[in-house]
């Protein structure tokens, strides 16, 4: 009696599992997408030296001749985004007000690390900030590097700059 029940149960289990395996093999169809953040940006905030109130600015990349290459859009009002140069250890930027008036220039010295993320996404460049220089020193007062890593986590606030002459 026990043996008969055992055989019936095992027969059913065998059938169920073989069917599951069959269904699994029929539904296995892979589609892979790039799920990584490939847009690596750092963020910078500028403040008035005395009042400590934030200045809404955005940045533009600058080439070796001092010409503007491209404006960098901001993701949040008082946070300016910056993208570091993947081919150089120094990136220079114009600091601009919302109506594109230049209020400063900065140079960020950094170390780059290129990373092959995966087959779907390709390559991105991560960086570590070493130094931040305000090029027009008469208008700059102080700089603080809050977070050195410029990586795929764009919520990091990397740099704070306090500017004089805009009170």
């Amino acid at each position, binding site marked *: 009696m026990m043996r008969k029940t055992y055989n019936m149960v*095992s027969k059913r289990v065998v059938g169920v599992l073989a069917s599951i395996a069959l269904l699994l093999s029929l539904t*296995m169809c892979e589609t892979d997408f790039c799920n990584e953040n490939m847009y690596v940006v750092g963020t910078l905030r500028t403040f008035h030296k005395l009042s400590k109130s934030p200045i809404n600015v955005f940045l533009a990349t600058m080439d070796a001749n001092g010409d503007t290459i*491209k404006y960098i859009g901001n993701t949040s009002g008082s946070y300016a985004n910056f993208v570091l140069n*993947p081919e150089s250890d120094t990136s220079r930027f114009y600091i601009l007000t919302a109506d594109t008036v230049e209020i400063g220039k900065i140079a960020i010295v950094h170390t780059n690390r*290129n990373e*092959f993320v995966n*087959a779907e996404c*390709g390559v991105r460049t991560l960086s570590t900030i070493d130094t931040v220089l305000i090029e027009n020193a008469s208008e700059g007062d102080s700089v603080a590097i809050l977070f050195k890593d410029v990586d795929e986590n764009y919520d990091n606030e990397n740099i704070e700059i306090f500017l004089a002459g805009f009170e």
Partner: protein
Amino acid sequence: MKTTTMRILRFFWLVLSSLFITSVFAQKKEAQEVKDEWNLTTSKTFYGVSVYADIAGPITSMFKDGKTDFSFGVDADICHTIYPTFEAGYSKYDATESYNYGLPQIPGYSYTCNGSYYKIGANFNFLNDGRGNKVIPLLYIGAKFAFSPSHFDIENVRLSNEFWNIEKAYSVSGKSLCRWAEFSVGLRYPIAKFFCMGVEGKLREFGRAKVKTVDMPDGSSFDVKQSYSPGYGNFNGSKWGVKYTIGYFFH
């Protein structure tokens, strides 16, 4: 083309699975009608060793461009309950067409990886009925640790940055060590004396590859996170798979 291939593959799975299910039930009926003298033995600790090969991998390789995979395994039958197991295989994967990030790739881009892989673990059989047979059907669950020393080749992968007007191509190759865990549920059934056929559903989890840092000729460093591994596939998540095996039980 891809859809047609998938249809052909599905057809093959259907045929294989049907054959397997049919043979399982046919054997079961026979076993009840005829007492198999050849299969009788006394109860013991070590019954023998099974050697088996995966037939799903080679069939898939025939129809899937850029993929080659074959493997074999050995397990020991301890008390018809515990089956220490070792598997080894070779796999080659061309993931060039996987690139789907917004930017078009540079002509000549390719990403391939190849290498051997090894799995060590054990299966636990639930169908030990204590009848003293040499070979018995298996309904088992198992766990294995797997690793793969593999080789990757990345040619002309694009680095693009619109804010600095940079377009650059990198080529890099090297070796990488990948590891993962594998959990399985399977069936194996004697189809003709000591020849056995099996089907196994496997879940591959915790796939990791050691990041390889390559020094480039221009002085920069390049970190490669292998995204594929022989024996695992794409590391972008856990992976289900089905393995069909055919093997022989040495008693």
